[in-house]
């Protein structure tokens, strides 16, 4: 493999599709969204059919006695206040457009220049992958990026 003295980086780059700026930004945004995820895997109980009697939370037992008001179920509140985060932000911008508000409180971009780290090993990087723009620090890292340790989980950073 190492017989010919040629750049693996340049050779591979010709074969791969080069992502444009918009696609790179999209990819970046996706990566940031992934960092907001609650779970990576699916609900382990998703296949279970819950008996209606199972989730007994306190309120149903207490409200049975002489109390006049029946406690509302969690489902009621789910329906009553159903609004996604995006809806809430949009609503806030319509009703409360003048700062200070949620949007205006966001910290502005830093004045310090960005630093660059290798997407594979985390150390400082001097090079950029030609097709996708991810950073890497050495030929070794670039090679490892094509063979992540676990095939089932590919971030495909480079």
């Amino acid at each position, binding site marked *: 493999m190492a017989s010919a003295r040629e750049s693996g980086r340049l050779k591979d780059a010709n074969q791969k599709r080069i992502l444009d700026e918009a696609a790179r930004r999209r990819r970046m945004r996706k990566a940031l969204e992934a960092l907001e995820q609650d779970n990576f895997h699916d609900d382990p109980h998703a296949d279970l059919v819950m008996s209606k009697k*199972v989730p007994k939370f306190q309120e149903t037992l207490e409200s049975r006695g002489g109390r006049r008001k029946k406690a509302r179920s969690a489902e009621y509140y789910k329906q009553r206040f159903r*609004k996604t985060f995006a809806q*809430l932000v949009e609503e806030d911008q319509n009703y409360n457009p003048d700062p200070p*508000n949620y949007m205006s409180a966001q910290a502005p971009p*830093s004045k310090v220049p960005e630093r660059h780290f290798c997407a594979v*090993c985390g*150390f400082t990087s001097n090079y950029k992958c030609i097709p996708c723009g991810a950073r890497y620090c050495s030929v070794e890292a670039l090679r490892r990026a094509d063979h992540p340790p*676990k095939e089932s989980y590919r*971030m495909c950073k480079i």
Partner: protein
Amino acid sequence: MAISREVFVLDNGAYTAKVGISNSEHPRVIPNCIMKAKSERRRPFVGDQLEDCRDASGLFYILPFQKGYLVNWDVQKNVWDYIFSKECCPANFSETPLVVTEPYFNFPSIQEAMTEIFFEEYECKSLLRINAGDLSCYNYKKKNPGTLCCLLVDSGYSFTHVVPYIKGKKLKQGIRRIDVGGKMLTNHLKEIISYRQLHVMDETHVMNQVKEDACFVSQNFFRDMDIARKRDKENTIARDYVLPDFTTLRRGYVRSIDPVDKAGESEQQQILRLNNERFTVPEIMFHPSDLGISQMGIPEAICHSIGVCPVEAQPHLYANILLTGGCSLFPGFRERVEAEVRSRAPDDLDVQVTLPANPVTYAWHGGALLGQDSEFSNMTVSREEYEEEGHSLCFEKFDI
């Protein structure tokens, strides 16, 4: 003037709820979520019921909060029902006033829902909704009488807020939010470990413990990077983390790297080798741009926030920087914030950064103290008032 009055304080965080009656010494810290375990298929675990769970691997989280704001009300209702029940932290809202916290700039419809649920569902006698930071600031003022200002840095699960308080009042124009919190740090750690050595994407719970046990804030980032690059003995940063197996070991631990493998022992143990991960993960709070988030880091945001405050308040703000929230527990956090703010601040001003003994429960203790304040009853809204005037009174009285 102090009044002896019991209040129930609920500091309702996105990761943990800090709850208790004001006369108890410490609040209970209850995970604010419902969890499902692979091993236990019969029931979900609500809050601290997780302690009953033998095998907490592959834990699935159902959270009431999203990006720091309460959106999943059915989940929250179930967690609250558990918290207020006899099993956890019994509350008698018909007699005890309730103090409940909300995030800064909480959206109006969430505020309405909060008011409604506590008055109509939990039948509270009187309610005070307040920002957790207001309580921390109150606590700080009580502990340090005579301070005029306080700059609060609350690094929580969903985000970090930098808030200037002048004479006990927050200056809303000065509030800065950095969208980096403990959740993002844990998820980032999960990603890089999964990419570099072992697939741990499903193990949020365990990796959060890894983060808590092993990560620290570097005092000199590039020097530590150089150390982490070294081999063997010269690398004083690398550590092994023994992962829990949930039969003999319930929580993992950090141990120094053992060059001589003790055969047998290490065969059974699963180990993560942590190197630059230990400090590049908390570093994101200081340089969000490392992950591509175009926002300032904490020290820069502190100076930016103080910059919009009145000039006469600025020296007091620099001298009273208060750190709260779970992310301020990283070793070295206070020192780093102090050093960086010092280097940015005008050199004739004093910079002092305080980290309370328990930054997680600091706001709760503030709430407990506020309950004793003679002004307290003027701050709350009673059920009669709510029934009379509805939400408009609450928006008027509660400054969220």
